[in-house]
């Protein structure tokens, strides 16, 4: 394992308009080396447009998207700086996978021997001679990942890298991204699979309608946007509801269970003490943790209401 020269991605008041539509609206954030950053937002939030501006494919209407302080076209060795997979379509379908990688390697002055190495790394060792058009979506994703990594770049950008991968492939891609970050690389990936993002990302950049909603560690993001929530079960529901209400807690009967109660805004310790003081027995007391998906959906739906 080697360590990289750290390179930071930075969006400076980034804006992109298409006619009257504003796809990206004044985004400013930094993506730092050494951690996996998840790029989250509903469809049409401006994620892909932002990634394309980092790569110089789309030109910002105003502001800038820089890689190590420079636009990608200004960097002396672009392939050593950024490797990207925007979608699994970045490959000519009638060109053999090995030829595709050989062309990419040659452009970056990378040794030809990296081609079989990379095919092996992404699990395409036996099929390098087949045209990419014959590949399944999962295999195309793997070839795209090999394309991004062949230049040994300091920054890795993946747009929806988990699409089409089977469960084993998803686990592989997850550990690959974690390893790349552990080597000191800057890793930015977008995904709509929030369960996967929760397992993979250390840090989140969340956008909606082209605006920044959050730029913080994953754990902090979830903590900030969830309220404590406890589920209790008791044979004596009416009395416990009454005791909780007297203690000033927001408690409501669980519609799904005859003996269940939902308490918001308090932890298990508090609910347990109230029950004990009232002498009510509990058959269950559970802290309900909201998933990233819950948080995200709540957040984007309130945003929609606000807009």
């Amino acid at each position, binding site marked *: 394992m080697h360590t990289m020269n750290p390179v930071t991605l930075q969006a400076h008041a980034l804006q992109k308009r298409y006619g009257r539509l504003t796809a990206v609206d004044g985004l400013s954030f930094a993506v730092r080396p050494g951690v996996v950053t998840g790029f989250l937002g509903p469809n049409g939030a401006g994620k892909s447009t932002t990634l394309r501006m980092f790569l*110089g494919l789309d030109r910002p209407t105003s502001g800038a998207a820089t890689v190590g302080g420079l636009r990608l076209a200004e960097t002396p060795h672009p392939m050593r700086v950024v490797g990207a997979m925007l979608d699994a379509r970045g*490959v000519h379908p009638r*060109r053999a996978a090995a030829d595709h990688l050989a*062309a990419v390697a040659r452009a970056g002055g990378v040794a030809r021997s990296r081609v079989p190495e990379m095919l092996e790394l992404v699990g395409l060792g036996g099929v390098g001679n087949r045209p990419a058009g014959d590949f399944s979506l999962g295999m195309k994703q793997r070839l795209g990942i090999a*394309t991004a990594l062949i230049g040994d770049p300091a920054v890795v950008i993946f747009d929806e890298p988990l699409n089409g991968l089977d469960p084993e492939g998803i686990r592989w891609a997850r550990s690959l991204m974690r390893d790349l970050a552990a080597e000191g690389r800057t890793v930015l990936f977008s995904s709509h699979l929030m369960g996967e993002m929760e397992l993979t990302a250390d840090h989140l950049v969340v956008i909606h309608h082209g605006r920044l909603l959050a730029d913080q560690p994953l754990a902090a993001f979830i903590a900030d946007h969830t309220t404590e929530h406890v589920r209790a079960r008791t044979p004596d529901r009416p009395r416990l509801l009454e005791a909780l209400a007297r203690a000033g807690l927001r408690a409501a009967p669980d519609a799904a269970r005859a003996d269940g109660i939902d308490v918001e805004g308090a932890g298990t310790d508090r609910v347990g003490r109230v029950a004990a003081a009232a002498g009510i027995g509990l058959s269950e007391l559970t802290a309900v943790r909201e998933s990233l998906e819950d948080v995200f959906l709540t957040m984007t739906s309130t945003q929609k209401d606000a807009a």
Partner: protein
Amino acid sequence: MDLLASEWIKTRSIRTTWILAAGAVLVTVVVSLLGISGLMAGWQADLPADFDPTGVSFKGILVGQILVATLGAQAFTSEYATGQIVTSLTIAPRRAVLLVTKLAVTALVALATAVLTVACSLGASQAALAAAGLPTADPTDADTVRAVLCAIGYLVLTAVLGVALGALTRSSSGALAVVVTVALLVPALAPGLPGALGDLAGTYWPTTAGQASYTTTGTGLLTGPAGLAVMAVFTLWTTLAAHLTLRARDA
């Protein structure tokens, strides 16, 4: 140099490249021979006074050029159609450099194709003329040599024009439509244009001027290198437009 080698790997690893190149050779030879077989028919035995045995050998270029231009257009259109352009521009984000590299690789492939096309077409046509007892070209004649070189140059320019049109239209069918219009339709319609406009278009239209360069008789005012120069200037402007478009547009 690395990017040039990379583009060469891309070009050679797609079968379409070789199909188009082989097609250009074949179609040019066949169409030239068909033209000569027309001359051999009895009712056309009276040759015109300015019969040009070199020029007739290259008649097939009229059709072959379409394939050569498509070969050039492929350099960009196949990348836009497949999404490969995203990969190409990520590894080579300086678009002018990518354009120049693609132009260079295409020009080299086109040069090889053109040499083969011109040699085969000339060889086959001269053999057919000789067999029919018709006058043949004098290979030592300076005009013949000049026509051969101009035919090769014309085909290479056509390929370069194709690259530029591919970058401008981003679509194979779009590029093909423009090529057919520029190389076939306008020259066919030009004689029908009124007065001075018809004369002007019939002489100075870039592909018409370029095609006159590989005859030994020429058509009117422009002969040889001058005709090729008109084609070259037109190609240069189109390439410049491709450069500006490539730089300004989102990929």
